[in-house]
C-alpha cells in the first residue's frame, strides 16, 4: 500500500474476490426462482415415408413427419440471471430391440421474455429416424416439450412444459 502500483494491485485482488463472491450469490439466487410453467402440446398421427440418406445411399431409411401444435407461456422462467431458454420438442419411444430412444425433432431459442409466449403450429425441424431404419415394429411414441434455462452465471436447469398423455401412432403412407 506504499506505492500506487501496490494499491492498484491490492484493490484489484480484493475486487476479484468480491466479484467471485457476488457471482456465487447471483448463481445461488437462481434457486429462489422456482417457476414451473405448463403449456399444451398436441400431435397429429406421425406420417412415415421411406427415403434415402446421404450417408448410406443404398439403405432405405424411414422418416417420420410430425405435425404439432404448441402453446405455452414461459415468461415466468425469465429472471435477472436468465440468459436464454432453449426449448425443445422430444419424441420418446421404445423399438422392437428394446432400445429406448429420445429424439429432438424441433427446438427454439428464446432470448427475451417478450418472446416467451409460445404459440406455434408446425412440423419437425430435424429428421425423425429410427436407429434400425424402420418404424414398422414401433407401436407408438410419446412427445414432450422441454426447456433448458441457461443462466448468465450458475447452474443449467431443465424442466418439462408439456407432454402428450396418449401415445401418438405412426401412419404409413403409400410411397409413390
Amino acid at each position, binding site marked *: 500500500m506504499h*506505492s500506487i502500483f501496490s494499491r492498484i494491485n491490492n484493490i484489484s485482488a480484493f475486487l476479484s474476490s468480491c466479484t467471485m463472491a457476488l457471482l456465487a450469490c447471483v448463481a445461488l439466487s437462481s434457486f429462489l426462482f422456482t417457476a414451473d410453467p405448463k403449456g399444451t402440446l398436441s400431435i397429429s398421427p406421425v406420417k412415415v415415408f421411406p427415403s434415402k440418406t446421404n*450417408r448410406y445411399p443404398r439403405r432405405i431409411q424411414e422418416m417420420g413427419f410430425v405435425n404439432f401444435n404448441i402453446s405455452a407461456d414461459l415468461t415466468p422462467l425469465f429472471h435477472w440471471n436468465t440468459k436464454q431458454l432453449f426449448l425443445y420438442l422430444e419424441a420418446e419411444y421404445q423399438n422392437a430391440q428394446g432400445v429406448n*430412444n429420445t429424439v429432438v425433432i424441433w427446438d427454439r431459442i428464446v*432470448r427475451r421474455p417478450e418472446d416467451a409466449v409460445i404459440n406455434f403450429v408446425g412440423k419437425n425441424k430435424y429428421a425423425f429416424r429410427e436407429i434400425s431404419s424402420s418404424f414398422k415394429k414401433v407401436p407408438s411414441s410419446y412427445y414432450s416439450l422441454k426447456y433448458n434455462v441457461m443462466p448468465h*452465471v*450458475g447452474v443449467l436447469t*431443465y424442466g418439462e412444459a408439456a407432454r402428450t398423455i396418449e401415445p401418438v401412432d405412426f401412419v404409413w403412407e403409400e410411397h409413390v
Partner: protein
Amino acid sequence: MFTEELRAFRRLGFRHVLLQVLNFASVIASGLMIWKGLGLITNTESPIVVVLSGSMEPAFYRGDLLFLTNPASERYHTGDITVYKIPGADIPIVHRVLETHDVSKTVKIPGLDTKQPGDQLLLTKGDNNYVDDIELYQGLDWLEKKHIVGKVRGHRSHLVNIRQIPTLRRLRHDRDERLPSVKIRITRYPRPIGVNTARIIVAVLTRPRPPSYLVSSSV
C-alpha cells in the same frame, strides 16, 4: 529497472532468491493441485473449459467458462450440453445432445458391433449449426460414453465479469504479486469447413493471494 532488482538480490543474498523460487513454485503447485483435485471430484480430465468458437451461440460465446462433471454413472439426455472428443481429433467440442438411444438388452445395430445393456448412443448438434454433428465424428455414426469428456453443469458468461487481465508479474520482495491465470492450450486445429465447432481450451484459474498487510517501502 533491472539494476534495482539486481541490487536488491545482492543485498538479500542467495537464500532470499531461493525463497522466491520456492514461493513461485508453490503458487504454481497449488494451482495444479486445485485443477487436478477438481478433476478427481468431477471425474473429468478438464473440469473447467473455455469456449473457443461460436457454434453454440447465443448460449455460449467465445471466452465463456463452462464447468463440467462426468460421474461414472452419468446418463445423457436430450438437451444436455456435452463436451466430447473424437479419437483422432485433438480439440474437444461442446455441443448439445440431439438424440439418445439407450440399449436395454443385447442388440446388434447396423454398422456397429453388438451393444450391451446400459450402452448409450448419442447424436449431438451445435445450437448455431443447421445440421447435426455426424460429419464431425470422423466416420463414427454415434457418440458413446467413452467419447464424452463431460456434461456442462454450470456456466459463467464472459459479459458479466470483468476479465482479470494479468498484470506484469513482478518478483519483488513484497508478497503482493498475483498469479496470472494460466492457460494451457491443448493445440491449434484447422477449422473444419462448413461446420463451426466449439473449440475449447483448458484454463487453470487460481484465486489471487491475499495481499500482505503494510508492506515496508524499502526492499
